[in-house]
């Protein structure tokens, strides 16, 4: 039969339920392939032995009513996993073993999923290329020395290389959708409040959301159904009626209104992105959607707003890393000296940069000029979307302004790195659901993605449009296993 690791999640579940593949066989296949793929540097922590043990236990007492029956899954190392090392890609958490489990991962284990390992990411999810990780660069399976995107770069790499059937990432400004776009995979950021933030190492609390990453749209719908839940342990979790996303998935999107925002035609956008977008519009029409021009006038203010709000919240969230109760401690002559040395040695350059920006914008005398101003502009950005949604059901844009770039190409210029998130950041600021699906290739044959943005809590429409367009686009990744000896 075909290679187990190349199956979609849906096919893998089907095979396990029909007893054609055991959980242990599936686990062995993904572990074997992961062990041959060390060059990608996708894993920070392997959980292989435990995974094999748990898969045997599943096979001895199988429960096929579960949504992820005995499915091995590797997750981004930003999710706290009980007694399994959780680093957030940082030296400061190099030796941290949580005493609790994140709600999102707990939901996966409750439905029969088994932890394969923890995947590399940018340090504290701050980055767009996985280059800020303390544990090193991650290779994009598409081509050598190409970044896999970030911050969920280990996740996108492992997924595209078939080291895990699906994975989960977190998205604060594009950290699921951009790496999905760079690796020819699907990544969904749900509405703020859909998936619990409990047990996710916090970056920017008003923007962070967990979401599924998968090889196709149907798999994302299956995983979203598992991870989306109301959670009392997260004060911003929202109690709304969640769909059975996978069973309600349909390609019938006839008459759905899709908006095309003029402001996303940014200066200097490469022709191939413009052409991809045009092709996307044609695909959407072919699927029966009605295309409507819309305006999101404050789009160009989204990135500057984000680079106030996110560092401000990060500087506050990361104040907890002081070398006292857990994590790295450097020796110092006094308590303050110990704090300062611990944080200087424990954090990488990008994280320090953002803590400094955040501390500055929140410092006495500057709060009104920066943080309050950004919150007001954030309101304007949200209102743009509210008004657009009076006319349309969803919005179609490119996912990123370029395809994946080479390792090292942008790492010395923070602003040019930040521009990567120009199409994804507004979605986080407005708390909306957004998905990136692979839609074509650039001149180097690197994948390019299209983004579909939905109304709050309307993940179903986003998934349905993506599912419908995916069939027309018919994109297939062409992975050559170049990294294997």
């Amino acid at each position, binding site marked *: 039969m075909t290679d187990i690791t190349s199956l979609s999640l849906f096919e893998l579940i089907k095979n396990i339920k029909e007893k054609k593949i055991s959980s242990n066989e599936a686990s062995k296949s993904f572990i074997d392939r992961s062990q041959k793929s060390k060059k990608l540097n996708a894993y920070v922590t392997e959980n292989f032995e435990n995974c094999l043990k748990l898969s045997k236990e599943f096979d001895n007492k199988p429960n096929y009513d579960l949504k992820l029956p005995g499915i091995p899954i590797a997750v981004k190392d930003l999710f706290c996993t009980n007694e399994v090392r959780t680093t957030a890609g940082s030296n400061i958490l190099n030796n941290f073993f949580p005493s609790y489990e994140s709600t999102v991962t707990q939901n996966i284990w409750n439905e029969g999923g088994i932890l394969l390992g923890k995947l590399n990411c940018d340090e504290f999810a701050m980055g767009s290329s996985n280059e800020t990780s303390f544990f090193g660069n991650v290779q994009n399976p598409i081509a050598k020395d190409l970044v896999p995107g970030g911050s969920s770069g280990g996740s996108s790499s492992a997924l595209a290389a078939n080291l895990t059937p699906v994975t989960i990432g977190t998205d604060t400004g594009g950290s699921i959708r951009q790496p999905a776009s760079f690796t020819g995979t699907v990544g969904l950021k749900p509405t703020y409040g859909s998936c619990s933030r409990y047990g996710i190492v916090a970056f920017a609390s008003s923007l962070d959301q967990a979401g599924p990453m998968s090889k196709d749209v149907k798999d994302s719908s299956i995983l979203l159904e598992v991870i989306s839940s109301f959670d009392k342990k997260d004060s911003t979790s929202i109690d709304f009626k969640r769909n059975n996303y996978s069973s309600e998935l349909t390609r019938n999107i006839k008459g759905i209104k899709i908006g095309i925002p003029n402001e996303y035609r940014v200066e200097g956008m490469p022709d191939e992105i413009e052409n991809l977008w045009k092709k996307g519009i044609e695909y959407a029409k072919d699927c029966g959607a009605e295309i409507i021009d819309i305006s999101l006038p404050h789009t160009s203010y989204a990135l*500057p707003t984000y680079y106030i709000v996110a560092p401000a919240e990060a500087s506050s969230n990361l104040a907890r890393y002081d070398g006292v*109760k857990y994590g790295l*401690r450097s020796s110092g002559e006094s308590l303050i000296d110990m704090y300062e040395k611990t944080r200087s040695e424990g954090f990488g350059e990008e994280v320090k940069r953002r803590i*400094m920006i955040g501390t500055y914008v929140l410092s006495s005398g500057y709060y009104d000029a920066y943080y*309050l101003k950004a919150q*007001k502009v954030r*309101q304007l950005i949200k209102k743009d979307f509210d008004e657009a949604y009076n006319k349309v059901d969803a919005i179609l844009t490119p996912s990123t302004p370029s395809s994946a770039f080479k390792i090292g190409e942008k790492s010395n210029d923070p602003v040019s790195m930040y521009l990567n998130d120009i199409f994804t950041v507004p979605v986080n600021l407005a708390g909306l659901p957004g998905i990136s699906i692979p839609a074509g290739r650039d001149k180097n044959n690197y994948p390019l993605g299209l983004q579909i943005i939905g109304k709050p809590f309307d993940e179903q429409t986003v998934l349905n449009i993506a599912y419908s367009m995916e069939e027309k686009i018919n994109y297939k990744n062409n992975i050559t296993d170049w990294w294997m000896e």
Partner: protein
Amino acid sequence: MTIDLKTVKHISKLARISLEEKKAEKLADDMNSIFEFIEKLNELKTENVEPLTSIAETTLRLREDKITSDNIREKILKNSPEKNDDFFVVPKVVE
């Protein structure tokens, strides 16, 4: 507006991050280029706009003040860089 070395050093004190002189200079350059980019917000008039403080339009929920976790003292202390019996140890704070 430019952020000078003195400001960078002050901010690094507030953020409790020690900085070498050379790193402080590089950080000042980086911060200036980032703030140049952020200044774009000043183009917008926002006097009459309500700040958006939370995207989830919910009021914070109350819960009973009750212990819900098991006794995990050992697990918690296991992560500490330095401990003494049941206590976290820090450098001396009183003379």
